[in-house]
């Protein structure tokens, strides 16, 4: 039985919505080592020999199962790079929940760089949820630099929910995807930075197969003195369709650079991008004030909805 302290429990709730040990396959990594692991008949979690990550094998045809691999860091000054490889068989239908929470109450920086590589089999359907969260009032920074590499086989489907709402000082997330014929990728990123945080996020999606498609949407809020950079590039190398959208709210002295990019290398590649940055509309605040909220409460409601 895994023994979790209160900080570990709180972080697991934040990053993986876990209130208890998850059902199905899981690995809980805390301060550099696994504190609990369970494989199932269809999902095998194999630790790397160097202790720096996992190989997760999901048997072809596995349906309606889940994998949780949350990471908790509570020691100030800990720095780690973790490699997790997901080998997802054909015709699989699974939910994968990752995520990392750092509680840093000390003076030294804590950093977790998760390198996640996905091989998605033919006709497989994957929902991937990755939440990042930071807490603690130490002077040490909480740094997360995730790398996500996705290779999608024919007619596969992947939905990625990438969330970072609070407490991460610096993040530099790089995501790439290569899609074969008929594959479909949906990305929903939600990001909020505050204080003097910095967040960089880039996506490169290569639509290599005929009929492949991607929809990469980011919603972000930059408040206080924070800075964000969002760059999403969709490359159409075949008859395909791609859409990317960056929608951002700036507050206080927040700054955002949005760089949507499209590259069409095939005459039948249909690619669209949209980007919008602006402060909260005054009329939105006013409407909620006429319903009885204060200006501050109205702002919070608008942001909560925007980042839902």
């Amino acid at each position, binding site marked *: 039985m895994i023994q979790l302290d209160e900080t570990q429990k709180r972080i697991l709730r934040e990053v993986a919505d876990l209130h208890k040990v998850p059902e199905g396959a899981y690995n809980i990594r805390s301060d550099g080592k696994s504190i609990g692991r369970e494989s199932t008949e269809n999902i095998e979690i194999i630790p790397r020999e160097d202790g720096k990550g996992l190989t997760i094998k999901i048997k072809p045809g596995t349906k309606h199962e889940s994998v949780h691999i949350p990471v908790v860091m509570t020691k100030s000054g800990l720095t780690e790079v973790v490699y997790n490889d997901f080998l997802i068989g054909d015709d699989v239908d699974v939910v994968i929940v990752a995520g990392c929470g750092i509680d840093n109450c000390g003076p030294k920086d804590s950093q977790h760089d998760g390198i996640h590589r996905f091989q998605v089999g033919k006709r497989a359907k994957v929902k991937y949820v990755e939440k990042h969260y930071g807490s603690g009032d130490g002077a040490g920074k909480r740094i997360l630099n995730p790398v996500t590499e996705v290779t999608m086989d024919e007619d596969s489907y992947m939905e990625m929910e990438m969330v970072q709402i609070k407490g991460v000082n610096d993040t530099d997330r790089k995501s790439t995807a290569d899609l074969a014929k008929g594959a479909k990728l949906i990305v929903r990123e939600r990001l909020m930075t505050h204080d003097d945080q910095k967040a960089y996020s880039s996506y490169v999606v290569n639509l290599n197969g005929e009929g492949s498609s991607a929809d990469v949407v980011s919603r972000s809020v930059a408040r206080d003195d924070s800075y964000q950079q969002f760059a999403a590039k969709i490359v159409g190398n075949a008859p395909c369709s791609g859409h990317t959208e960056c929608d951002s709210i700036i507050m206080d002295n927040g700054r955002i650079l949005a760089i949507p990019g499209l590259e069409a290398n095939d005459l039948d590649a249909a690619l669209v991008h949209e980007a919008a940055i602006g402060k909260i509309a005054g009329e939105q605040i006013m409407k909620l004030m006429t*319903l*009885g*909220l204060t200006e501050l409460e109205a702002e919070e409601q608008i942001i*909560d*909805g925007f980042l839902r």
Partner: protein
Amino acid sequence: MLELKNVSFGVDDTEGAKEIIRDISFEVPTNKMVVITGPNGGGKSTLAKLIAGIEWPSEGKIFFEGQDITYMPVTERANLGIGYAFQTPVKFKGIQVLDLLRIASGKKIPLAEACEYLSAVGLCAKDYIGREVNASLSGGELKRIEIATVLAKGSKLSIFDEPEAGIDLWSFQNLIEVFEKMRAHIEDSSIVIISHQERILNIADEIIVLKDGKVTAKGPKEEILPGLIGTSSAVGACRMIEQ
């Protein structure tokens, strides 16, 4: 319920000072529906904003249930019992109809109660409750959701600024029924509607005519309405199609 005493409101623009509301005084009694009409540009919407607190008068006083609210902020007025439906409903990315109804009611009302407010404005609740209040909704749908938020708020005084603006005729027919129902269940509250639609004027207890920022006529519907028929202050449904 509501009393305006010698209220004026002006703005300074590039062409100099401009007076939009000029020395207006009137009362909205409890249990009454008052419709404010008049030609476009006469100051009707500005008057609604002055009552809701979105604008403050340059002169005069506004009283609500005997309390001076002339310079009271919007939030306080809302909490005191004043509701206001925008002429152009505001859209929100991510905020759902249910969220807005819960914010309006001031508590986490159960789903069934939220659905009742949507049904009251002629929307099939299950189709709308989880929708985002964004541009995917039509003008008529947004307008009805806007009205539902004012219903959910349960105000003593509800102000509707041109509820018919921007909606199709079919939605308009439904809207009339909504206001007829509200009039029938007005118990201890009051309703102010800014409108120049004959059918809305027809539900009114009292009518106030506003022109060039001044009240040019006011009184019971039976007295005022006959003189307005056929003018821009009482537009019939057929004119709406033409427009």
